[in-house]
């Protein structure tokens, strides 16, 4: 059995008296396409935050690539190869679109490889990522000049520019049109084909179903289902959580 790339062991998190995460166990294999769904407030974002280090989990541990992440700052986790896009895009407004992508290259990738990327190498990488998301014609514009869709693409591109082993796409498709969703799906599939493990958090069931090899359902901070997507959706508890 292949060792998990990401191992989440009994992770728990509370906010005051409110239990956001209650003993979550989850293993993600390298190269896997995992879908994570659940009603609003079920703890999906909290889980992502705990994995990525934006929040620290109180109980349990998160192990990535054989390394325990507990206590590590978010930037250190990114350097190790964990990357995420934010649900609401958070671009760096004072710099151009291209420069937004230079940041993870200048910091995460450089710290990982230890060597200094020459300026033209850097630009080449930026342009490549921008082309991948279809934003190369807006390379020198500011984020405020982008449309909603373009901002989401920039958000994903920036997460990709950190050259992760595992990418968490947090509701990257919310509010997009059908063809735009197709675009993002194609992009994520291509990234996966290159070997990047992907966790997709989504509400758009059609996208989740066509993308995921495995589906995990979170309700009220607990994992209630984990397995083959087709079987999971037929699970009565899952139906209840969404329709009941």
């Amino acid at each position, binding site marked *: 059995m292949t060792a998990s790339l990401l191992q989440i062991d009994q992770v728990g998190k509370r906010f005051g008296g409110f239990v956001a995460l209650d003993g979550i166990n989850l293993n993600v294999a390298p190269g896997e396409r995992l879908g994570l769904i659940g009603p609003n407030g079920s703890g999906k974002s909290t889980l992502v935050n705990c994995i990525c280090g934006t929040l620290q989990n109180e109980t349990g541990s998160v192990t990535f690539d054989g390394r325990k992440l507990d206590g590590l700052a978010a930037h*250190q986790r990114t350097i190790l190869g964990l990357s995420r896009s*934010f649900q609401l895009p958070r671009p*760096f407004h004072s710099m151009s679109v291209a420069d937004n992508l230079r940041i993870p290259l*200048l910091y995460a990738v450089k710290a990982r490889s230890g060597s200094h990327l020459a300026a033209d190498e850097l630009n080449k990488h930026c342009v490549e990522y921008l082309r991948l998301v279809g934003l190369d014609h807006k390379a020198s514009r500011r984020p405020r000049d982008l449309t909603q869709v373009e901002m989401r693409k920039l958000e994903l591109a920036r997460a990709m520019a950190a050259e992760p082993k595992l990418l968490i796409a947090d509701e990257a498709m919310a509010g997009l049109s059908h063809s735009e969703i197709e675009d993002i799906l194609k992009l994520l599939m291509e990234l996966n084909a290159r070997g990047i493990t992907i966790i997709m958090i989504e509400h758009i069931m059609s996208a989740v179903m066509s993308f995921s090899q495995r589906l995990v359902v979170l309700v009220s901070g607990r994992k209630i289902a984990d397995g083959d997507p087709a079987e999971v959706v037929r699970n009565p508890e899952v139906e209840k959580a969404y329709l009941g």
Partner: protein
Amino acid sequence: MQSRTFILAVLAVAAACFAAAQLVSNDYLFFAGYTVLQFIVLATAWNILGGYCGYVNFGSAAFFALGAYSTVFFHKTFQMPIPLLILVGGLVSGIVGLGMGYLTLRLRGSFFAIATLALAVVLQTLIVNWDYVGGSRGAYIIRPNTISIVGREVPYIEYLFFLMLALAVVAIITARTVERSRLGFGFATIRDDELAAEASGVPTLRLKLIATTLSGALMGMAGAPFPYYIGFLQPQSAFALDYAVNSIAMPMIGGTGSWIGPLVGAILLGTIQQVATVTISSAVNVLIVGVLLVAFVIIAPNGLVGLVQDLMRKKSR
């Protein structure tokens, strides 16, 4: 503009300033000029943490005073030439900046700002109660009339002016170099969105500590020659609120985005204040600064530099 060209240009301008001052050879010009140059250093230093990283420091006076009082301390224990005192002042302030940053930078920006206020008062209370450096009664530093440099007898105030000019040059070159470096990019991400910066691999705490240390050190260096300039150092003058207000107002009015803003703000406001102090009163001049700060912050958040940039953008359309 290439960095080397810029450095040469700055040195040329500085040399021209110094030569011009020599030609006029009015003592008052040296005194007033020293003050303006001091503000250039303080404003530029503040902007490294405030404008580039977005972390407001209300305690500029504390770092400035630390530089001044370390000079007093060494003047009493172990005489040293001023350039060395400047380095010492910078070191002391830098270390305190680092320490304070370590305690408070892991929290939100607003907490840091409040902590800087606290630091200023704690430091002032400590100094007021420390008799060795004069306490609340103050300390006298006799300023010699002249100093001999390469055989020539130079009036002391010219010497101080020259030192502060050199410091201003250092501050501006440092600010510009940082701005254009990977470090400066990192600073900008902290200002724009610290959470996203962390997620992109930027070690935000480390960068913020660097900014705080650098900013504090420069302010300490600006404060080190102050006892010689003023002759009699009291905590009230070293910790005066003016320093805090001016080091914030000058970059905010000039423009916080680059090294140009603090320079413009310092020269403009510094000159206005010198004129106002002489013509009206010193209390009114400080009131003007406060009013301008509030006005600019509401109406022209990008400062004078921002206004000029907007104008140029409109013209090019």
